[in-house]
């Protein structure tokens, strides 16, 4: 994995949310399952948002209003904050 230039913001968000990024942290937030990610994309679509909007302050602020049982806003925020792990891995 050495290609960095091509990674779009959407891809970055998908990786942040759904991949381990080399982490073996038992206490850290667990990446989303395919089912959970499905729920999130539906939630995003309903608000005319794209994954990359979660990297902006305004988009991130809307996560607090998420009502799905499968998705805890804190977990999503923790996953999105793994930027340095993403930076190292890609």
């Amino acid at each position, binding site marked *: 994995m*050495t290609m960095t230039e091509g990674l779009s*913001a959407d891809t970055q968000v998908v990786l942040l949310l759904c991949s381990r990024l080399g982490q073996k*942290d038992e206490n850290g937030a667990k990446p989303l399952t395919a089912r959970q990610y499905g729920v999130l994309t539906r939630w995003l679509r309903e608000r005319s948002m794209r994954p990359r909007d979660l990297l902006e302050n305004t988009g991130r602020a809307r996560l607090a209003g998420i009502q799905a049982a499968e998705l805890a806003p804190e977990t999503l925020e923790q996953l999105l904050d793994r*930027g340095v*792990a*993403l*930076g190292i891995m890609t």
Partner: protein
Amino acid sequence: MKERALALLRQAIGDPRAQFRPGQWEAIQALVEGRERLLVVERTGWGKSLVYFIATRLLRDRGAGCALLISPLLALMRNQIAAAERIAVRAETVNSTNPDSWPAVETALKAGKIDVLLVSPERLANEEFMTRCLLPVAARVGLFVVDEAHCISDWGHDFRPDYRRIARILQALPRNLPVLATTATANDRVVGDVTAQLGPRLRVIRGPLLRESLRLENLRIPSQSARMAWLADRIPRFEGSGIVYTLTVRDADNVAAWLQQCGIDARAYHTGLENEERQQLEDMLLGNQVKTLVATVALGMGFDKPDLGFVVHFQRPGSVVHYYQQVGRAGRAIDRAYGVLMSGAEDDEIANYFIRTAFPSAEEVAEVLRVLDAAPRPLKAAEIQRALNIRPSKLAKALKFLEVESPSPITHEGTAYVRTPVAWVMPAERIERITQLRRQEQARMRAYMEAAGCLMQFLAEELSDPEAAPCGKCADCTGERLGATYPAYLGEGAARFLERLSLIIEPRKLWPQMATFEGERGRIAAEFMAAEGRALCKWGDAGFGDLVRDGKRERHFADRLVGAAADLIQRWNPRPTPEWVTCVPSHRHPALVPEFARRLAAQLGLPFVGCVRKTRATDLQKTRQNSFQQASNLENAFEVEEGSVQRGPVLLVDDVVDSRWTFTVLAWKLRKAGAGPVFPFALADSSADDGSSE
């Protein structure tokens, strides 16, 4: 939030009435509230560390992860770390010296007990460190800080290829991660370059670079001995302690030794010293326990001594960025400090050398890749070295160069190297572009030497400081000059000191009296005489003398001797400049001198031609006590292969010179065979003391 930030500032510096300096609060706010990417360009001492420590505290209060601080200056950050602790920011460092504590740091990080993780740029190049130490905690980093960010741009000059890796990580970071890049020196070119690498979302905060207490002055003093005399005269009269910068390690050693001889408390500081000793020297300077360190650029970025009284450059640095960085260390918190730039005859030669050798050669790189390609398994550096007979430093440079390429043609497996399937060619265009840039920077420093107006304004304008204006302090603004004068006795003393460092080998003018040498007698014809030569040191002297003796014993002369010989020859600058190198053959140690001469030739960028053969064994010259015996010992002992003798001037290399007969005879034979002027060079001079040195 601003109130809380201000309270933290006051707590950190222990001043209840402190206010933010212009730009500090803006930077903190942009990081904490805006999660922005910032480049902060402020002079050292402005308080960049306060920005990231307060931002870290505020981010942590909001539940964010720790800050990752990449800085080449970890050893010097003790004061800043103490300030951080006052606002309950706990900093820990992980580096190559403390692998035992990595697991504990990892545990503490995961438990949220560490607020700032300090890492040196070199660590990011280490695979084991990355996977074992950094990756497990990377998911918990909430702020990414890069100190001395101009290194991202300045690659090839600051010799920090590791920053290319940092740039890559920065490029791959998602935009929701706040990033702070800081530097004290960045002109528009550097800012443009950093912006290009970190993306258009980078916001730049920059303040004035002017140093109000610094009195700049330029002195053109071509000869080294004159500059040394000036230093010996001036330094005792400067208030406080300071730094003398030299371009080479050898000069740092020599100047320090000279100043010591003059009774000045001076110490050399360079990469040749162990880290521990360097740390000790820094502490001595910080505590004013030494008058001056004579340092190379190794006394580097961020060395912060607010009361540094003077910075004198013995030679001209390669760029305005470097000069400002170094001279800017003086006078941060005192009313009067001196920044003197001396320019000598050798400046361009040394600068050109650094430019020339900034990159490994295409051949070296190709050879390394060829060896790795052919290897059935990963190879350690030592194994590559054996296969290639390349100098360790050159190999390290080539490997580092290849490793930070992206995508890289080589990778690590443990401590060994493997060729990756990446097709790769030498980036000739990039190297050419950087080389051109270095030449421009060199030209700007020459222009600074000639500058007609305010010197500080010149520097500030070169660094794109929007507030550049006459400083009212420099030699040009005030008309007060230290001047280039010094007492004559110091000039003579310095000249003698230098003479002792490089010993002159006088050419013999006469054949042995009352005898013939291969049919010759009387005066040696001028056109067949040796030219004046040089020896690196006295046989048995401490320092190089010891190395020469060790080399003879171990049948291999150390790389340091090759470097020192090349330095001496460059300083010596024989005219007409030698175009090839040959050496004195020996029956006793047939490989020792030719092998050394070859390496020396390579270092000088000249061809080596082994065109002298020994036709019979001779006695050791030092066992022959007089000219006649010494000369007759050599009669018909050497043969020059006429066919391989080159036309141009030649450097004739031997390990030890004693009677000078060997040089005399070989110069005569080489010249008769058609060679140009013959310049003898020996590592050591073992002739009896003639009284010229103490």
